């Protein structure tokens, strides 16, 4: 098993169908589970989209206000107040 350049012998009894080229979680010399590359890439893609969607559509204040049944706060006014307090 190649650990980013360091090679070590690993017991594959618990993941017997592991193929060369796949990634796995290794603990104390035993492969315990295959790493699902598809899932890893999907998760990272969700994280990337999270910010982008938010930049485009996100309005947390608006959402919070909506959930609370309140009018959306005047953010510019709020920022000025905060600045004044400092």
């Amino acid at each position, binding site marked *: 098993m190649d650990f980013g350049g360091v090679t070590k012998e690993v017991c594959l009894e618990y993941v017997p169908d592991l193929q060369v080229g796949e990634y796995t979680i290794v603990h104390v*010399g035993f492969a315990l589970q295959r790493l699902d590359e598809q899932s890893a890439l999907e998760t990272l893609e969700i994280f990337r989209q999270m910010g982008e969607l938010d930049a485009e559509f996100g309005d947390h204040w608006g959402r919070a206000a909506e959930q609370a049944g309140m009018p959306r706060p005047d953010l510019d006014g709020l920022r000025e107040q905060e600045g004044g307090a400092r």
Partner: protein
Amino acid sequence: MKYLDEFQDPELAQRLLDDIRATTTRPWAMMEVCGGQTHSIIRHGLDQLLPDDIELIHGPGCPVCVTPLEVIDKALEIAARPEVIFCSFGDMLRVPGSEKDLFRVKSAGGDVRVVYSPLDALKLARENPDRQVVFFGIGFETTAPPNAMTVYQARKLGLENFSLLVSHVRVPPAIEAIMTSPVCRVQAFLAAGHVCTVMGTGEYPELAERFGVPIVVTGFEPLDILEGIRRTVHQLEEGRHEVENAYARVVSEEGNPVAIRMLEDVFEVVDRSWRGIGMIPQSGWRLSERYREYDAEERFRVGDIHTQESSVCRSGEVLQGLIKPHECSAFGTLCTPRNPLGATMVSSEGACAAYYLYRRMQVPTTGEAREVSSVG
């Protein structure tokens, strides 16, 4: 390394933090169960990046920390025997027993060896047929399958000079113990990703339902931990309490069925004491009847040993999340990683050691502290 660096990306971390910040409307206290997660949180300063309303309570998921003093004392007694080669993971060697630690036994002539894997101990047993090789089998559901496989192999090979000193523990009963404690402040759990890698997620829906707490299976890299927290905060804010899997690249609902079958064959569930916490019903494993002959406790007849915890050390409260490490008066003064009073200061997964190494301390800078901080 692939799929490690990607999950440390600072820009994506910021996006997760922004979402957590935008979602949080009031104080929430959640517990990260695993010591590996505690280490990662403190190392990367994640707790300091979170909104003030989010409190992370460090859980008891450090195997070295919760191994009872009595078991350490049994290890010390076995390791001191002339016929024994005593093998252990390195971090157990400095864990204080009642009077000494394994290092002290080694310096007094005991044959104590640090191994990377239990299979290394098995190899020693084959190479030294005239010696008794004992492996110190501690740990949670993640470490139990390798140890189970090792005992299974020993039997298959007919190795009569190999045995296991077992002190395995299980996460779900610990969650139950924490939630039923009268001083419990935990409102949600980040479940230990690598435990679930083996066991799957099937044990948790009942706990989430019974105690009304969100349980989010969480990984160990900064983005994994932030995503676990983010999903937990969403559940808490929306009044949900479900089991979610935020570590899907290695955790599936069924876990690793081959490993679970091996666990059930080699081990059986027993009540176990946790250092600093006390007895938790059904919270551990010992060798099953079929494999009992490989039990070092029976082989070496190490009887009950009376134990005395340090009266200064407050690791029990740290392990239960009642105090933060630096709130203990011994932290960083009487108790340091080089001279630990309790196990939480020994293991790299212990909360006290993590706080000490990453400079979360408000104590006068001693020589040792300077040295450590210049390394860190």
